């Protein structure tokens, strides 16, 4: 037995039974899973959650599945890293990184949404699953479907990074490259979903898929010791995760599992694709679509389906929007790696770069706790780092050459961590 009540339109409140559904019949609004929170009182508690598995399924009572999880048994429950070295660098008191670059099995936040979507697809009895993707979703669908023995069709923009293609192909899906940007891919995908009896996770399974994103927020709260960070900085592509982190926080407050400290949610986008951040800055409710042009390809969605709700949540929570240029994104990737040992992709670079700008401009006060949501892994997009480093020294396998090399580093005025190497104390 689950606590699921029905599907409910976020616009007009129309209710629908739990079946595959893309949008509301009346207004095309997104439909969302509604729960019986009253029935959860006293049953869904800190203790009941803490007794669950070390995966996103510890929050099963707040997810829209009926039976036992079938897919993604090891997904979620990623580290919340207390980022003290980065905090010192940025001059903030308390900084956390929610690190989904380590998510299982495909190293992005998408393993959360897909675990829930494909479990639901199997409950509905589908044998073929698919998605439109900027890369990470395709990886996750392909991997989870391989493990579950489902047939897979994924559609991606033609110009994706090689790592993003190989990372899906290896699992054996039918991968189709579409001539166009993500919004073109999405349009075709929607038409395909209308025609074929497949579970397209971001189309007819959208209400279930998006619920999985809440687990990112649940984990932040639990891992902070059942508290909410005052500030959470979240990347925005199609606009799924940001409103769902908010929904997660609201649900925990509703159930009395955390205190309502007036959490603020901030939106991060790349400057080359920032329709939502632009609308927030201009005080508009409705965003204007854009043609993306950024190295942050995984979040390059110029016509975000849930953009309207991102604007609403950010505004209502008292948060802000910020965007980061390509050089700022690359600098932030480097900074996170050098201070915290975490290698993220440009989406994560965008989020951190925006967090830094929000701190520097005072919109995130330096003495309030901040959580930065790192949603993807840098090893998938190594080509963006080309030219970021001086070439590594190449030497013969002789100690003399090594010593000469160190001496030369000093002569050339090597900076940072390498500067002191030549004068390190000899053991």
């Amino acid at each position, binding site marked *: 037995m689950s606590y699921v009540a029905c599907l409910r339109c976020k616009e007009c409140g129309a209710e629908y039974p739990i079946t595959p559904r893309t949008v509301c019949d009346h207004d*095309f609004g997104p439909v969302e899973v509604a729960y019986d929170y009253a029935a959860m009182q006293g049953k869904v508690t800190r203790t009941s959650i803490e007794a669950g598995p070390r995966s996103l399924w510890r929050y099963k009572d707040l997810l829209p599945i009926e039976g036992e999880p079938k897919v993604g048994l090891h997904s979620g429950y990623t580290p919340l890293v207390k980022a003290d070295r980065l905090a010192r660098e940025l001059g903030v008191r308390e900084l956390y990184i929610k690190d989904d670059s380590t998510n299982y099995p495909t190293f992005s936040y998408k393993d959360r949404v897909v675990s829930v979507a494909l479990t639901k697809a199997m409950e509905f009895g589908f044998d073929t699953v698919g998605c439109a993707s900027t890369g990470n979703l395709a990886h996750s669908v392909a991997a989870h479907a391989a493990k579950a023995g489902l047939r897979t069709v994924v559609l991606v923009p033609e110009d994706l990074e090689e790592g993003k293609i190989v990372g899906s192909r290896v699992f054996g899906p039918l991968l189709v490259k579409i001539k166009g940007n993500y919004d073109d891919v999405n349009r075709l995908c929607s038409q395909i*979903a209308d025609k074929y009896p497949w579970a397209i996770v971001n*189309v007819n399974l959208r209400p279930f898929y998006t619920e999985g994103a809440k687990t990112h927020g649940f984990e932040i709260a639990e891992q902070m010791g059942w508290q909410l960070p005052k500030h959470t900085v979240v990347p925005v*592509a199609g606009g799924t995760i940001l409103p769902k982190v908010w929904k997660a926080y609201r649900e925990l407050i509703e159930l009395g599992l955390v205190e309502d400290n007036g959490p603020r949610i901030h939106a991060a986008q790349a400057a080359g694709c920032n329709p939502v951040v632009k609308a927030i800055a201009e005080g508009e409710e409705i965003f204007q679509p854009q043609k993306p042009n950024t190295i942050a390809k995984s979040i390059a969605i110029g016509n975000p*389906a849930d953009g309207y709700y991102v604007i609403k949540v950010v505004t209502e929570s008292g948060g802000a929007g910020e965007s980061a240029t390509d050089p700022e994104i690359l600098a932030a990737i480097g900074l996170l790696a050098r201070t915290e040992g975490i290698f993220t992709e440009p989406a994560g670079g965008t989020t951190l770069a925006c967090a830094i700008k929000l701190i520097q401009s005072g919109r995130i006060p330096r003495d309030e706790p901040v959580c930065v949501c790192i949603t993807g892994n840098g090893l998938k997009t190594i080509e963006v780092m080309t030219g970021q480093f001086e070439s590594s020294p190449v030497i013969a396998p002789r100690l003399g050459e090594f010593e000469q090399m160190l001496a030369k580093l000093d002569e050339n005025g090597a900076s940072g961590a390498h500067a002191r190497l030549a004068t390190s104390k000899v053991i």
Partner: protein
Amino acid sequence: MSQDVHVLIPNALRSQAGNLSSVSVQATSIRDALDALCTQFPELKARLFKDGQQLNRFVNVYLNDEDIRFLKHLDTEIHGGDEISIVPAIAGG
């Protein structure tokens, strides 16, 4: 001069459009085409338009491969053989 164009209807609207997946109309602009469609299937009007004027914000309309918001919105001119798609906004990433 009015031109013959195809309008692709998404699943979510078909029950209000005679269960058709595409409809041919005569029109000179996108507004014209959608008006013609709504004349033929009056129930569509409330689905596609807010206050009868502005397109509902969750409805995306494409002329061939381009979102009409990158063209002249509802005033975008159309030509014989063009294809108009009505597509609900969908998630993903």
